[in-house]
C-alpha cells in the first residue's frame, strides 16, 4: 500500500445522517412489515396457508387424488358427517365422495404453486425485457414497448382461454398461459423505474468508472428497481392465483383428477341451489383468505417501499 498516510479528520458534521446501523434495506423492509399490524395479519394468513399446503400429505386425512381412497357412496355428505369407515369429514365431501378438507389442502398446493411459479417466470422474463428496453433505448425500446402495449390491450382471460384451447390441460400448460398473460406488467414496471434510475448521478458515476454495461444493469440499476417490482409481483401472484381459479372454474384449467381451488368451487356450483353449499363455499373462503392475505402484504409493501413516504 503506497498511500496509506492517515488524514487528520477534523470532522464536525451537522445532523442529517441517520444513526449508523449497517442494516441492509432488505431487513429494514422486513422490520417495517412486521411492525405494520395489517401486514402482519396478511403474513400470518399467507404463512399458515403456505405451511398447510406444504405439509398437506402429512396432515390431510385422505389423499384426494388417489381414487382408491374415495367412496362414491360418501358423496355430498354435510360437514361433520362420518364415513362408512368411521372417519369424520370435517368440511363434508364433494359429489365424488372426496373429503373436502383434504381436497382444499391439496388444492391450495396447486393454486399456490401455479401462482408463484408463473409469477416468478413472468418476473424474470418481464424484468429482463424491461431492463434491456430501458438501457438500450431508441428503436429496441420502441419495438419492445409496442409489443407490451399490444399484449396489454387484450384481456388476460381471453389470451389464456385461447392458449389453453391450443395447448390442452395440465399444470405446466396453465403456467405457460399465466406467464404469457403476465410478463408485460413486469416489463412495463421495470422499464419505468429503470429509466428513472438510469438518469441518476450514481449511474453516471458507474459509467464514468468504465464498469461493463452488464454490471451496471445488474448491480446498479436492477437493485434500485426492486421496490416497485416487489409490490407488483405480490399483487400479481394474487392475480395469477385468481386467474387460474377462474380458468379451472370454466373447466379448461386443470384436470378433474387434480382439483385446484377453482375446480372445487366449480364442482360444487351445480349443487349450490340444492342446499349443498359447503362444496363451493369452503374452497371459496380459502381462496378469498389467500388473496386477501397476499393483498394485505402487497398494500403494506407499497406504502413501505414508496420513497415519497420516507422521512
Amino acid at each position, binding site marked *: *500500500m503506497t*498511500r*496509506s*498516510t*492517515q*488524514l*487528520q*479528520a*477534523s*470532522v*464536525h*458534521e*451537522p*445532523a*442529517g*445522517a*441517520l*444513526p*449508523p*446501523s*449497517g442494516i*441492509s*434495506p432488505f431487513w429494514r423492509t422486513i422490520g417495517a412489515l412486521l411492525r405494520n399490524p395489517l401486514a402482519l395479519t396478511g403474513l400470518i394468513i399467507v404463512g399458515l396457508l403456505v405451511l398447510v399446503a406444504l405439509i398437506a400429505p402429512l396432515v390431510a386425512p385422505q389423499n384426494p387424488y388417489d381414487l382408491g381412497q374415495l367412496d362414491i357412496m360418501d358423496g355430498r355428505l354435510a360437514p361433520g358427517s362420518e364415513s362408512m369407515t368411521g372417519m369424520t369429514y370435517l368440511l363434508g365431501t364433494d359429489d365424488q365422495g372426496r373429503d373436502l378438507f383434504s381436497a382444499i389442502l391439496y388444492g391450495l398446493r396447486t393454486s399456490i404453486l401455479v401462482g408463484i411459479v408463473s409469477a416468478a417466470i413472468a418476473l424474470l422474463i418481464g424484468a429482463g425485457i424491461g431492463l434491456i428496453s430501458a438501457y438500450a433505448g431508441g428503436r429496441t425500446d420502441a419495438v419492445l414497448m409496442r409489443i407490451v402495449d399490444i399484449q396489454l390491450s387484450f384481456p388476460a382471460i381471453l389470451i389464456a382461454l385461447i392458449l389453453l384451447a391450443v395447448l390442452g390441460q395440465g399444470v405446466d400448460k396453465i403456467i405457460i398461459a399465466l406467464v404469457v398473460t403476465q410478463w408485460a406488467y413486469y416489463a412495463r414496471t421495470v422499464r419505468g423505474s429503470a429509466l428513472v434510475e438510469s438518469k*441518476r*448521478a*450514481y449511474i*453516471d*458515476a*458507474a*459509467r*464514468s*468508472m*468504465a*464498469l*461493463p454495461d452488464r*454490471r451496471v444493469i445488474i*448491480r*446498479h440499476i436492477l*437493485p*434500485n428497481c*426492486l421496490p416497485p417490482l416487489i409490490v407488483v409481483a405480490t399483487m400479481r401472484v394474487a392475480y395469477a392465483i385468481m386467474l387460474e381459479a377462474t380458468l379451472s372454474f370454466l373447466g379448461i384449467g386443470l384436470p378433474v383428477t387434480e382439483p385446484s381451488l377453482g375446480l372445487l368451487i366449480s364442482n360444487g356450483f351445480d349443487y349450490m341451489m340444492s342446499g349443498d353449499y359447503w362444496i363451493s363455499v369452503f374452497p371459496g373462503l380459502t381462496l378469498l383468505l389467500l388473496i386477501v392475505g397476499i393483498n394485505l402484504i402487497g398494500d403494506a409493501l407499497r406504502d413501505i417501499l414508496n420513497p415519497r413516504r420516507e422521512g
Partner: protein
Amino acid sequence: MSNPILSISGLTTSFRTGGQWRDVIRDISFDIGPRETVAVVGESGSGKSVTAMSVMRLLGGNARSSGRIGFDGHDLLSLPVEEMQKIRGNRIGMIFQEPMTSLNPVLKIGDQITEVLMQHRGLDHATATTEAVRLLDKVRIPSARARLGEYPMNFSGGMRQRVVIAIALACEPKLLIADEPTTALDVTIQAQILELIKTLQQEEGMSVLFITHDMGVVAEISDRTVVMYRGDIVETDTTRQIFRKASHPYTRALLSAVPQLGSMAGQPRPLRFPVVDMKTGEIAPVPPTADTVRHDIAPVLKVEHLITRFPVRKGILRRIAGRVHAVEDISFDLHAGETLSLVGESGCGKSTTGRSLIRLEKMTSGRVQIDGKEVAKANQGSLAEIRREAQMIFQDPFESLNPRMRVGQAIAEPMIAHGLASSSEAISRAGTLLEQVGLSAAMADRFPHEFSGGQRQRVCIARALALDPKLIVADESVSALDVSIKAQVINLMLDLQERLGLGYLFISHDMAVVERISHRVAVMYLGEIVEIGPRQSVFENPQHDYTRRLMAAVPIADPARRQTRRIVDSEIKSPFRAADYQPPKRRYREVSPGHFVQLAME
C-alpha cells in the same frame, strides 16, 4: 428599539419522529424592528427554516411550538386558524427558495397575482389587473403589461423569483420573510434580487426576516444577524459587529470558512482554509501549499477545439430545428498537480465540457487527449483504460452513490471490475482509501444514507481515487455542502493533490471557492471560454466584460464594503441556435504570459 414588528421570545419547536418529540429549535428569542432587516444564518440542520415556518405556522401536524411570537399586538402561536389565515400572505409575505415550484405552472402570471389581490384586498378584476401591472413594474419586470398573459415557464429563474416577490408584496405586508430566496439562482441574478429586496424595503417601509446559509449574502443585506447552530441561537448582534468581532467560536468558524473573493491577492498558489477549533475559537495557522504543478512532463489533459452540440428536434418528422451549442470550440490543457477551474453560470457549458472529456456526453468534434490517449477514437476497451486515468466527482453526494450498496463495496467495485485486485484485496484497499479521505475503515459496512452530506462526498472522493487516476473532474463537487464542510473537503482535495500529484478540472459557479483552489481559471460564457489564464492574473486583472460582471456580482462577506449596484435586468442568454448557424471564429489576445482574453466581435 422602538416597538418591534416581530418579537419572538422563548420559541421552541419540536417534531414527532417515531413516537417521540424532538426539539428542533430551542428557546429562540429575537426582535425585528420597523424597517429593519434581520438575517438568520446557519448551516443545514441549524433550524433556521423551521424558525421561519414556525412564525408562519406552516409546519405540519407532527410539529408543535411553544413560546411567544408577538406580531402587531397578537401572539401568533395562540391565534385561531382563521385569524392566522388573515395575517399570513396579507400582513406577512413570504418568498421561498425554489422559484420554479412556488408558482402554479398552469396559471398565467397575471391571474396568479390578481387572485391574491381579489382574495385579500377585495379588489374587482379591473383594478386588480392595474394593480398587478404596478406590482410587476415595482419588481422591475420589463414590459409588465405584456407579460401578464404569460405562463411561468416563459420566465427565467430570476424573473420568476421577481414574480413571487410581487405576489408577496401584493398586500403591502409589514414583514417579508425570505427563506433562502437566492440560493437557487446564478450569482449575477442573485445580485439583482438582493438589490431589488433592499430597494423595495426602503420604498415600502417593510421589515425583512432573511433566512440564508451564505455569509456573503448576510453581509450584503442585513442590519442585524442571528447565528443559529443545531437549533440554538449562538449569537445575535449587528451585522457589522459580527463580522468585525464575532464572540462565539462557531460564528468565527463559520466566518473563517467563508471564501472571500479578493482574499487571495498576491498569492500565486492555492491556499487551504484555516481550521478553527470549535471549543476555543482559535484559528490554526494555514500550512503553506507546496508547488505541485508538473510543467516538466507532458500535460495530463489536452483539449483542442472541443465542440459539443445537442440537436433539438421538432415535429413528427423529428427534423433538427436547431442546436444547443453547449460547448463551442474550446481548447486548454492541464498538467499533473494542477487545478484548472471552469467557472460560469448555469447553461454556460462547463458541466457538459467535463462530461464530454470522459465521454459521458458524446462530443461533436475536436480532440481530447487524456494522458496521451485519444478519447474520441477510443473503443470499449481503450475507453475503459482512459476512464481509469480520469475520474469524476459529482455535485450531489446524495445522488451519486448507489443507495443499495455498502460504501465499501462501492469503492471496491471499480477495482474488481477492472481486474486490478481480487475482491478481498479490493475490500481492504477500500478501507485504506476511506482512511485517506478522513473517514474510518470501519465505515465500509455502512450504507450511503447513514452518512452526512460531507461524509458522503468524502466517500465519493475515495471511490474516485480507487483506480489511481491522474485526473479528477470535479463537477460542482462542493456546491451542495455547508460552508464549514465545504472548507474541509477543499482542504482534503488540496492535501490529496500534494500527496498524489492529481490534476483537477474543477467545475464551479462559485468564484470565491475557485479563487481559493485553482492554479488557473477559465471563464465560460455561452459555451465558449471568454478568458483563461493563471488565477492571480485573471482575478487581479480581469479583462473580459463578463468576467468583471461575474466578479462584481459575488456578495462580499464584509458589511463595510457593502456596495450599491445598479439593478441590471440582464438575463443569461441561451446557447440555442438555428440549425444553419455558423459560429464565428473567435480570436484571443494575450494579456500577460498565459492569460488570454477573447476579443470582442466588431
